[in-house]
């Protein structure tokens, strides 16, 4: 059989399979469930985004046209929130993958107590976001009692009030701390899956530690970095608890990201319509980011 024939046969086979009414019937529950699960909330959100609907004013409903959109896009908080979301995501990705690679390289070396060090390294991952944020707020970054303040005082510096002076930076530090173990775990696994003979071949070829990292280890980490970026992106776009228990999005909008902005609309201003528009915007942003990420990594995943 030629390739062309094989292809046609395959196409026919596929057609047969998908056009069989019984097969369609069997996939129906899954399709319906998927629709209910993902499309329905989207439709409801779309619906509300065109409605005038404020919980403080429940009698005053009805269609508002693009009113919610106009209102949101004139809100100075929106630009801040989008920018903060992107900045938070970008910084955490760079920190966790950069520092994570270094730590993974260290943990890959032979040293006494390596197993214990690995367990310690992973520990932060098991702390709930709310708890770790509170830990950082009250034990590390507190301007009077915090450990960082203690350190600064002991070298003669004036302690800083982290959440007043650098709220977004503080949140970036906390979220990075939470996600570093995950990055280390995936990167360490990838480093250990590198063929030992390949490293030895590079050693014979004259590669020192830096050349070894640059030409052998880093290219090998491509997939792991892609996977880590993807997964972290999904979770970090929607960071909420860390902001809620520390800075509450302030001062002003300095540490408000999109998901916190939505919360502000709903529970501080009771504006369901406005929140719906912000939600739609979050979806658009996530999709744009996902598109670029997938595209830039699709190339990597190929090799």
């Amino acid at each position: 059989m030629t390739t062309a024939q094989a292809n046609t046969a395959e196409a026919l086979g596929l057609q047969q399979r998908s056009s069989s009414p019984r097969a369609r019937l069997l996939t129906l529950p899954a399709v319906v469930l998927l629709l209910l699960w993902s499309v329905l909330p989207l439709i409801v959100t779309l619906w509300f985004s065109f409605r005038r609907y404020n919980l403080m004013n429940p009698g005053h409903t009805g269609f508002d046209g693009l009113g919610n959109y106009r209102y949101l896009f004139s809100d100075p908080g929106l630009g801040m929130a989008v920018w903060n979301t992107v900045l938070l995501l970008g910084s955490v990705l760079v920190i966790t993958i950069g520092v994570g690679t270094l730590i993974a390289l260290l943990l890959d070396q032979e040293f006494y107590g390596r197993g214990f060090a690995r367990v310690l390294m992973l520990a932060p991952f098991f702390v709930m976001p709310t708890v770790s944020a509170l830990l950082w707020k009250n034990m590390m970054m507190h301007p009077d009692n915090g450990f960082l303040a203690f350190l600064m005082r002991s070298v003669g510096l004036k302690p800083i009030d982290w959440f007043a002076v650098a709220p977004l930076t503080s949140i970036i530090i906390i979220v990075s701390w939470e996600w570093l173990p995950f990055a280390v775990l995936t990167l360490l696994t990838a480093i250990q899956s590198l063929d030992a003979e390949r490293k030895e071949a590079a050693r014979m070829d004259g590669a020192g530690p830096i050349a070894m990292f640059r030409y052998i280890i880093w290219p090998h980490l491509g997939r792991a970095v892609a996977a880590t970026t993807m997964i972290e992106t999904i979770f970090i776009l929607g960071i909420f608890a860390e902001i809620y228990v520390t800075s509450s999005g302030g001062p002003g909008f300095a540490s408000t990201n999109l998901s916190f902005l939505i919360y502000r609309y709903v529970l501080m201003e009771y504006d369901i319509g406005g929140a719906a528009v912000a939600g739609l915007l979050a979806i658009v942003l996530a999709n744009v980011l996902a598109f670029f990420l997938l595209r830039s990594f699709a190339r990597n995943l190929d090799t």
Partner: protein
Amino acid sequence: MATVDLQQLRKTYNSVEIIKGIDLTVRDQELTVFVGPSGCGKSTLLRMIAGLEEITSGELLIDGQRVNEVPAAKRGLALVFQSYALYPHMTVAENMSFSLKLAGVSKAEREAKVMEAARILHLEPLLDRKPKELSGGQRQRVAIGRAIVRHPRLFLFDEPLSNLDAALRVRMRQELTKLHRELKATMIYVTHDQVEAMTMADRIVVLQAGVVEQVGTPMELYQHPKNLFVAGFIGSPRMNFLTAIVVSVSDARVALELTDGTVIHASLPASAVSVGHTITLGIRPEHIRLSATGSIGAQVQLVERLGSESYVYVQANSGEVLTVRVSGEVNVAPEEKVRLAPDSDFLHLFDAIGQRIS
């Protein structure tokens, strides 16, 4: 161009000695093969020479200079791995020129050297491909090319053909031998396949459990194995072994009695053995004939016909199972009683501790 001297080389892993004091000289421009059963320490020894494995004690000299502490990259050798260990994200050309790039060689010179190696190995059309787009044999050639571009003093190979199919293995074997001749390079080649060793080597080193059993040319090992281990390891099919007792010694001839009472005569200087000694008699399958007048009685168990030759597996009356090689067709059937005539010029005698008597 190099000679390598090993002096009492030892390697210990967690207090287990793997390499047990090896003395050896690898001569300039020769292809030396390390051969031995799995786990005997061939790879470990090669990696010690390469500098990938620390030397526990002893001296390693290359061209007369002690290199125990010289790092792998500075020893001027190239190692071809069993798994090829190519860099998957680099093209064939980049794989081959990686060491030159690290050494700071100019781009033009790098290209020239890669082209030269590619010509020798017929890799020119593949230079822009990635390793995953190559067949096993082609990958093997790239791995060899990576070694050639460095112009090393010494080439090291660790079972480079074991991942290839039988036909390709034979071809690569010939290509490697040819390459060795063309490059006039010194090579050490590790294998557990005694056929590879016999066909490729200028000199074979037989290893067992971390010690050298014998060093010699393929024919020396075939004709004068120093002990039972080498006798059994070199040659295919394996040498046959029979237990016997010396019953009489006259000048240059001894009479040996097998366990069933059969008496066989062998030529041997009289001083080597005395009456009453138990010895092992070794006969290669190609040195036994099926003959009605033969001295050893036996029963056929199995016949393998390969066309050009046949192997007859028989059980001697003394109990041992023997292999007889017959050229061409043979007309015996299982269960049949036959008589065997060993060629008395090709008998190998080993004493009670397995050392050759001569």
